[in-house]
């Protein structure tokens, strides 16, 4: 682990990353207007850019702008009614949730599971909670990959997840999708358990970590700059 090679520019403690995600959640929830939301999203993209994820940042930025822009135009010119509510809600949810999604993805991709466990051990959270949590965070992307394979296979066999199949034979479609997914997941869980036991995760003594996990000056500075920049957006909205 010590010779892991190049670290990213923003080498934060897992707790700092968690606070970033929480702060983004709180601020996008409180944002009174699209202007502030876009400001928050730009700050989030700033983190991705500083950390060297240029492609991801640009793609996400274009997607967000397209959805917000198109959505605003469509809702303005579509006649009143159910379509407007549906589109409006879709817009609303994308606008509020996409920044959280992006920063949570960044936090998960950049956190080693062992770092996360060590950081939570420092916060005196019981092991019964940290281990499932760490596994869950690590496993969500895997589930999505696995599910993509299963969806492709289902399509090949003509039992794909379509609205027609879901309405006509809901139980069968559900079974065809979930059973392989769960079987694979349980298989991976067994492998993970074996690996965890080899690493001595079941010991009662406190874990030690080769990589130093702790809150340094850069963590505090990062948090202050991050929340500060977002708050500037709120002030700009109020006074400009």
């Amino acid at each position, binding site marked *: 682990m010590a010779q892991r090679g190049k670290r990213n520019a923003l080498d934060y403690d897992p707790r700092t990353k968690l606070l970033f995600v929480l702060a983004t959640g709180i601020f996008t929830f409180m944002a009174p207007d699209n202007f502030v939301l876009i400001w928050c999203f730009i700050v989030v993209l700033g983190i991705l850019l500083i950390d060297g994820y240029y492609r991801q940042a640009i793609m996400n930025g274009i997607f967000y702008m397209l959805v917000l822009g198109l959505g605003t135009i469509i809702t303005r010119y579509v006649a009143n009614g159910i379509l407007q509510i549906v589109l409006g809600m879709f817009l*609303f949810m994308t606008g509020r949730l996409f920044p959280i999604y992006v920063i949570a993805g960044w936090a998960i991709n950049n956190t080693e599971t062992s770092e996360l466990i060590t950081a939570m051990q420092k916060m005196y959270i019981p092991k019964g909670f940290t281990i499932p949590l760490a596994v869950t965070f690590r496993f969500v992307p895997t*589930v999505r990959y696995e599910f993509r394979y299963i969806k492709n296979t289902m399509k090949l066999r003509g039992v794909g997840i379509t609205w027609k199949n879901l309405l006509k034979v809901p139980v069968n479609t559900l079974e065809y999708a979930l059973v392989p997914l769960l079987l694979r997941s349980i298989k991976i869980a067994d492998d993970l*358990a074996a690996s965890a036991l080899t690493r001595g995760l079941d010991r009662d003594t406190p874990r030690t970590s080769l990589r130093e996990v702790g809150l340094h000056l850069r963590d505090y500075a990062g948090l202050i700059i991050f929340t500060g920049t977002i708050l500037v957006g709120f002030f700009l909205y109020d006074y400009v």
Partner: protein
Amino acid sequence: MNKTKLNVRDFITIGVISAVAIVLFISVGTIMAITPVGWLFMYSVLAIPLGILYMLLYTKVPKKGVVLVSSLIFALPMLMNNWMVPAIITIVAIINELIWSKGNREKFSNKVLAFTVFMTSRVVASFSTLYLLQDMYLTQFADRAEYFEAVLEALAGPLIIVSFAAVVLTSIIGAFLGKATLKKHFEKAGIV
């Protein structure tokens, strides 16, 4: 190995099943929550696939603490927008855990009860949050006020009873479906 206490293997199983549950929750929830009626019945639809998942979990790990830990992990993503939803879920989860650990954990009826309470707690949490904090929602999301007004109007009417009945009913259906699936696939594969 200790038979009644959770070990690392069980913790990992809980984590993996919760990950699948969260992916399902996000994908189904995003589609359903677009319309107010869909939002009301989101958990009723979710209860059916989750029934299979949680029956597998409760059958594979019939130990003390499973209900509490799995509920808490599944409540965590909700922390991002409101503190009240996870708070209510946590309180119900503790009560649910007490019922679960007192009864015979191998019995199917106990599993159904735990799962039904778990799903219902989520509906109670999201409805009561919206109801108690309605002024905040309406001022905060002034541009989406008609959506929340539609939901609140529905909550004031008989639809709330229908919604509760639906989630209890589908949880039980989901649990039975889970039992059938376990028998058909997972027992043959030697997993439970």
